[in-house]
């Protein structure tokens, strides 16, 4: 767990140099660059959320009009609900599968790099390409999913054409892409657990299941939490794959909040309304992020 160690610093163990203003000057350009592409857009977005836009033109201060408008917009709430459902289902499955895979593999295997790369390839390529890949698998006329279902006597689902199956289809894509992340984090957590409690339990004659629930799981909890929170934060912004696969359709069945906000801004040119949605989203996201930083710090204290 490098993350937290880094934040906490190692003042106690390492003597840092005292050197006047030099380090601040070294830091400054990077911090300015960061502020320019994050703080500034967020503040400017906050300003835009209080303005009315028509045909992409700023029509002046509008107070809380945009916020009231989205509050009364059922499509917005639907997008929030769809996003929440998408995240809860996907991240749960990813965590479960990741844990299972990590548990199976942890003891036996010293990973060769190649196996590792093969397993995590889905999360490294561009999400747009992930979208293309699954578009090719799902396509009713040239894909492989429909023939597979047909061979099993389950009809031809034409996954992306129907609301429910399209949503499930996107969950499958997300699970394929991101289970490797949870797997990696959990595997590292497993491999850094202290061995003593396990030996002791085994000597006492505890069964594998007992050991898992009484020792492994509690010890692993901090790592699991870090993985879940990191993945959840990332999933809130899910956009690329959906843009390629369904564009939010059919209807609004797969319209996650990022897709709706994007369309509001760039299809309907309502920058103010779009930013009102995103600023509201940011408020929730910040809570998650603070939780993430806190957890990363704590889990590393525990692991060390």
């Amino acid at each position, binding site marked *: 767990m*490098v993350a937290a160690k880094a934040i906490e610093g190692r003042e106690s163990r390492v003597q*840092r140099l005292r050197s006047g203003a030099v380090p601040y000057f070294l830091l400054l350009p990077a911090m300015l660059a*960061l502020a320019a592409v994050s703080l500034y857009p967020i503040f400017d977005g906050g300003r835009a959320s209080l303005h009315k836009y028509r045909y992409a033109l700023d029509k002046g201060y509008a107070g809380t009009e945009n916020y009231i408008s989205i509050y009364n917009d059922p499509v917005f709430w639907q997008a929030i609900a769809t996003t929440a459902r998408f995240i809860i289902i996907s991240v749960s499955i990813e965590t479960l599968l990741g844990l299972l895979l990590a548990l199976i593999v942890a003891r036996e295997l010293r990973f060769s790099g190649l196996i590792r790369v093969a397993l995590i*390839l889905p999360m490294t390529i561009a999400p747009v390409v992930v979208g*293309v*890949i699954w578009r090719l698998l799902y396509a009713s006329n040239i894909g492989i999913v429909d023939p597979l279902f047909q061979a099993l006597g389950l009809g031809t689902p034409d996954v992306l054409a129907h609301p429910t199956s399209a949503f499930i289809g996107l969950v499958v894509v997300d699970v394929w892409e991101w289970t490797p992340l949870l797997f990696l984090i959990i595997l590292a957590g497993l491999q850094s657990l202290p061995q003593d409690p396990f030996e002791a339990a085994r000597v006492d004659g505890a069964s594998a299941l007992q050991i898992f629930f009484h020792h492994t799981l509690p010890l692993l909890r901090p790592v699991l939490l870090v993985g879940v929170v990191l993945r959840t934060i990332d999933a809130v912004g899910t956009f690329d794959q959906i843009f390629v696969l369904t564009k939010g359709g059919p209807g609004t069945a797969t319209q996650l909040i990022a897709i709706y906000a994007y369309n509001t801004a760039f299809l309907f040119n309502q920058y103010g309304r779009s930013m009102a949605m995103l600023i509201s989203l940011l408020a929730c996201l910040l809570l998650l992020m603070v939780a993430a930083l806190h957890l990363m710090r704590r889990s590393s204290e525990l692991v060390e």
Partner: protein
Amino acid sequence: MTPRERLGSVFVYFTLAVAIGLALFPFWWMTVTSLKRPVDIFSSVALWPQQITFDNYYRLMRDYHFGPFLMNSVVVVTAAVAVSLVLGTLAAYALARFRLRFGVRRMALYAVLLVRMLPGILLVVPLYIVLAQWGLLNTRLGLILIYAGLNTSFVVWMMQSFLEEIPRDIEEAAMVDGDSRLTALRRVVLPLAAPGLIATAIFSVIATYNDFIIALALTSTPVAQTIPVGVSTLIGKIEIQWGPMAAAGVVGALPIVIFALIVQRNFVRGLTLGAVK
């Protein structure tokens, strides 16, 4: 090995084989589709091309502007990563080596992490408005500036953890020998940090090359559109050209797969934001 242990072993490797199969098969399907003739794409479900053709790739270049897309990606990614490596490494050095006052160190690292976690959709509308004011919409320069800034967060984060691992005695020895701090940095620290620097550079390339939403919103023609945006232009037409689309996916994935193979060892650390070493 007892029979039971052997059975366990078989089970482990079987699970692993299934997992690898599930991870890789979709890539195989895309590659195969990209090498098929249109007739073969539609005719039957074949797990390998009946007759290999590179026609789809040729059409990508001829009809779908993939030459310019590729060029844009190369220019934008190279410039943005270069700038962010310089800015980020300097800041990382300050964080890893100096005692900073007023909690600056902690604030800087929090800021870096938060920027890293922000979803692109949140930034894209205001960035669009700014670039429009500066006349930088649909330009490579506009993309370079934004990616350089965003990626700096990643470089600071990674490099300060790599630099922390280099014992400062070595550096101080060089300074006792008469090097200035800057010379010591160049002559001693950077060579030692080279593996970390290279890994960081490659992750930066991957992340920048893969970005979609920012490039999608801020560019509109092949003058500045990057590969991922180019890939998405093949969709959304009334009729999808499956062959070229599959080829575009392969073109989009290939550089990343190659880089992934190069940095195997440090891969996990970069992908998990240092949550895993």
